[in-house]
């Protein structure tokens, strides 16, 4: 559940994105579609609307016209009656020449017309006589002659009808008129005509939709525009204007013309300034000769579309917005989820990684199917596949065990049945340690860990994780070995102790018994002087032996318990050697042994050491040599200063060689152990505690030295002791001293550092000898240059005084001194430099002082005088 899930999530994301895009496209397309259908719908809606309105209005107008026709008819009758009442003689009116008209009659007509006009709804009420004379309600009754008008002909022929005038003779306005014949004495005397003016017509036609005025035209069938609510229309004939129209479809123009021609209604749509709208032609109906053309206002039309579109757009945007929001929400959620998954995956990866560091491989076992699967790590090369039956895994592992017993045990541990049984009983982790030779001899801890259980609690999957604990195991074994060894040592120690005690008690008892025995004998034979003397002698011998034994034991125990402390002191090696020599010689004389003693290679016999213990060591070794060398043999004792070391020490080497009985190879390693004595018949006859060498070697160790032995059975042995001992000052008895020198504190010179600048080796050696004796630490330079170098090298304050020879190659004493004084330190200027010279003439003294030397001493020098001078110089500053 790592990379795979992430990839899948990515794929999902892409899918989601594609869906989103498609959806948006779909929505946009829908919108476009919606918009179009919107327009269509609105158009249709508007058409319907305008059609309804127009139709209604047309009907209205038509009705009105019809009413007015009826009205004018009755008006005609009214006038007829009025004529009758007023005895208007129409004959008198209808004379040919206008001059011959009876003014009285005219005036009567005028009066009657006025009265009617007041009562009638018509804007203008006129009487037209048979000659076309227009009788009005004005001051001049006869206003015009309308004989050429079309309606004249109609009127005098007794027809009732409607007409229109585009330019009134009287008022120059557009009028519609209704006429009807007037009879007198059964004959047509003329006709009345009632006119309505523009206002009336306007009110009739005026209509608005959605607060926008519709443009309405009243037309005659031939297209003549009778009246238009849009005053800007200048054209006379409507049909002529059609070619200027931008009809939406070509057929619309045809429809309009047809409607006019056939007296039909029709809808048409056209565009004004690119904006679409609809119009309708409505036939007034009946026998009317008129048609109405109504236009749906462009603004209204467009605003309706606009509104609908806006609504649509708002809807769309809301949808899109919603969609986006939803989309974002899902994406964010998805990303968060992905992040969480990645984190989880990382965690699990980290754990995985950590586990794989700890465990070498992971195998997951399907408990129900009894199969294994390697999750991590490789199955050990070549043997088994990554997946397989559990038994395959188990057998492969068991095959590696070369040892049957181990294999059986392992089989038991990794047995599928046993493991699952324990797991089903509730155990979640089972571990065992196996000594499995996977690669080499290795130890592993096998952990069987339950991963999942089914509803009843039975294990369904468990992991096998293997840990290499070879390292741990090896460590355990190592520790065990160490402990065993320690225990063995302890046991050996204990045994040694018991042996020691038993040997000791045995060894003590023997002389003790002798003492008691001989004491009794002496008491018994008290009067036998010889007997008593003999007994006492033997008692003394035994006592001595007993004492030495006890001393040895005490020594051993003190050494073993670490309670020994060396008592170092100044001693003279030569004197020690003398004593040893004497002792050994006296012992050897009894056995006729030849003793040679050579100590002349010791140049520093004065050392600081534990004199007593050193003597003890040497005496022990020498004593053994005497003891174990049969008569006639020889012993040689050598002491030499093997190497002179810096810091006033030397390594001294003492060796004792004998031609004695020697020791066997088997025994040699044990010689320095307590109570170890070679067991053979010869040894048994020689008295010894077996502690001597043990003590000796311990003491040598304590003194920081080494002891070694080489021996050949039957030929002899050699013991070698090497010790590093510090030298020691010793003031010489001075017979030559000029005792007028003031006595000085010799100890004050000990440890002081002196630079000896001398080219002659022999002189240097002698000088060093003397100076060391006084306790100086001596550094030697072989010429003046080396001397200066040494001083600068060691730095300020190192040397306390310089002893400078004059006559030297390279750079002589004077020169060197000048150089030293020339060094830029206070120390160099004040460092005491004493000249050593074979020349003691006064000039030389002066020259020494001139070059910066503090003092002068002649060669060969007197040690005391030298010491005094040095002391004086050192402490003078």
């Amino acid at each position, binding site marked *: 559940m790592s990379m795979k899930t992430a990839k899948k999530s990515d794929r999902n994301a892409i899918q989601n994105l594609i869906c989103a895009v498609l959806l948006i496209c779909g929505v946009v397309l829908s919108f476009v579609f919606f918009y179009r259908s919107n327009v269509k719908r609105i158009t249709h809606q508007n058409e319907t609307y305008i059609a309804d309105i127009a139709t209604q209005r047309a009907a209205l107008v038509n009705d009105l016209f019809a009413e007015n026709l009826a009205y004018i008819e009755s008006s005609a009758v009214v006038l007829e009656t009025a004529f009758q009442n007023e005895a208007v003689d129409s004959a008198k009116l209808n004379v040919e020449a206008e001059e011959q008209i009876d003014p009285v009659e005219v005036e009567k007509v005028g009066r009657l017309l006025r009265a009617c006009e007041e009562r009638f709804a018509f804007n203008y009420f006129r009487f037209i006589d048979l000659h076309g004379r227009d009788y009005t309600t004005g001051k001049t009754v006869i206003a015009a002659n309308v004989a050429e008008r079309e309606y004249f002909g109609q009127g005098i022929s007794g027809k009732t009808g409607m007409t229109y005038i585009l330019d009134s003779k009287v008022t120059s306005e557009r009028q519609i008129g209704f006429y009807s014949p007037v009879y007198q004495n059964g004959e047509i005397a003329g006709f009345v005509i009632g006119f309505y003016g523009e206002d009336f017509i306007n009110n009739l036609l005026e209509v608005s939709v959605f607060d926008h005025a519709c443009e309405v035209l009243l037309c005659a069938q031939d297209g003549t525009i009778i009246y238009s609510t849009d005053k800007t229309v200048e054209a006379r004939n409507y049909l002529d204007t059609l070619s200027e129209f931008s009809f939406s479809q070509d057929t619309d123009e045809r429809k309009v013309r047809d409607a006019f021609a056939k007296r039909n209604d029709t809808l048409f749509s056209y565009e004004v300034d690119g904006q679409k709208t609809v119009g309708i032609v409505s036939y007034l109906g009946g026998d009317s000769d008129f048609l109405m053309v109504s236009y749906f206002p462009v603004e209204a039309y467009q605003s309706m579309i606009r509104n609908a579109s806006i609504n649509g757009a708002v809807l769309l945007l809301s949808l899109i917005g919603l969609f986006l929001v939803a989309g974002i929400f899902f994406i964010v959620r998805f990303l968060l989820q992905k992040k969480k998954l990645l984190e989880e995956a990382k965690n699990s990866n980290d754990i995985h990684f950590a586990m794989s560091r700890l465990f070498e491989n992971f195998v997951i076992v399907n408990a129900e199917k009894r199969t294994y699967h390697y999750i991590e790590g490789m199955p050990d090369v070549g043997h088994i596949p990554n997946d397989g039956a559990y038994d395959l895994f188990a057998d492969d592992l068991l095959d590696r065990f070369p040892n049957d017993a181990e294999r059986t045990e392992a089989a038991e541990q990794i047995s599928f049945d046993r493991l699952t049984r324990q797991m089903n009983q509730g155990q979640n982790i089972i571990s065992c340690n196996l000594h499995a030779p996977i690669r080499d001899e290795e130890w592993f801890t096998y952990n069987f860990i339950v991963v999942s259980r089914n509803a009843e609690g039975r294990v369904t999957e468990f992991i096998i994780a293997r840990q290499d604990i070879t390292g741990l195991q090896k460590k355990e074994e190592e520790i065990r070995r160490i402990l065993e060894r320690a225990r063995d040592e302890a046991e050996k120690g204990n045994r040694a102790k018991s042996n020691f005690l038993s040997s000791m008690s045995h060894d003590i008892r023997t002389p003790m018994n002798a003492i008691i025995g001989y004491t009794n004998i002496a008491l018994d034979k008290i009067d036998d002087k010889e007997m008593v003397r003999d007994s006492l002698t033997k008692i003394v011998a035994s006592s001595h032996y007993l004492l030495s034994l006890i001393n040895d034991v005490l020594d051993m125990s003190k050494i073993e318990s670490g309670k020994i402390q060396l008592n170092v002191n100044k001693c003279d090696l030569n004197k020690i050697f003398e004593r040893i020599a004497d002792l050994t010689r006296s012992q050897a004389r009894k056995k006729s042994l030849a003793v040679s003693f050579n100590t002349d290679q010791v140049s520093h*016999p004065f050392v600081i050491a534990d004199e007593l213990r050193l003597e003890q060591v040497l005496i022990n070794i020498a004593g053994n040599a005497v003891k174990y060398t049969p008569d006639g043999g020889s012993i040689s004792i050598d002491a030499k200063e093997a190497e002179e070391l810096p810091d006033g020490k030397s390594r001294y080497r003492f060796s004792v060689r004998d031609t004695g009985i020697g020791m066997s190879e088997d025994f040699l390693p044990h010689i320095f152990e307590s109570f170890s004595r070679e067991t053979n018949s010869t040894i048994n006859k020689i008295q010894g505690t077996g502690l001597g060498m043990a003590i000796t070697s311990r003491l040598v160790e304590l003194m920081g030295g080494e002891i070694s032995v080489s021996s050949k059975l039957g030929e002899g042995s050699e013991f070698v002791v090497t010790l590093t001992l510090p030298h020691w000052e010793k003031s010489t008895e001075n017979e*030559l001293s000029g005792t007028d020198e003031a006595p000085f504190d010799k100890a004050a010179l000990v440890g002081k550092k002196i630079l000896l600048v001398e080219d002659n080796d*022999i002189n240097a*050696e*002698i000088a060093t000898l003397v100076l060391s004796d006084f306790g100086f630490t001596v550094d030697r330079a072989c010429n003046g240059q080396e001397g200066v170098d040494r001083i600068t090298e060691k730095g300020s304050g190192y040397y306390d005084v310089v002893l400078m020879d004059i006559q030297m190659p390279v750079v002589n004493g004077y020169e060197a001194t000048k150089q030293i004084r020339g060094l830029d330190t206070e120390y160099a200027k004040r460092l005491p430099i004493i000249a050593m010279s074979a020349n003691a003439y006064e000039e030389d003294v002066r020259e020494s002082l001139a070059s910066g030397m503090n003092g002068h001493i002649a060669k060969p020098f007197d040690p005391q005088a030298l010491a005094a001078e040095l002391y004086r110089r050192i402490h003078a500053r």
Partner: protein
Amino acid sequence: MTIDMLTAYGANTKEGLQRCMNNDGVYLRLVKMIPGDGHFQKLYDAVEAGDLAAAFEAAHALKGSTGNLALTPIFAPVSELTELLRARTETDYTPLVTAIRDAQKKLCDICAD
């Protein structure tokens, strides 16, 4: 070589030993170094060549070492020679040189013992 032999030779062994802190070993060892000292040859060559300055230096060195060890048979003539050479005296050094050579040879024999 022993102290006695040196005493018989003419050295002031008492003084010499004293200088060596009464250590026979040291004394005898140092004495052994004298016959082979390169300065002898340097001296002889210098005198032969007439290089008095070089001869002085060699003689001076020998005077020091033989004096320290109190080897009188060598020390005495060397000492005398040194003072003459210090002054760059023009003289015949043959007698002194011979004396030195002899004493050196004799010491060499004793050391070989």
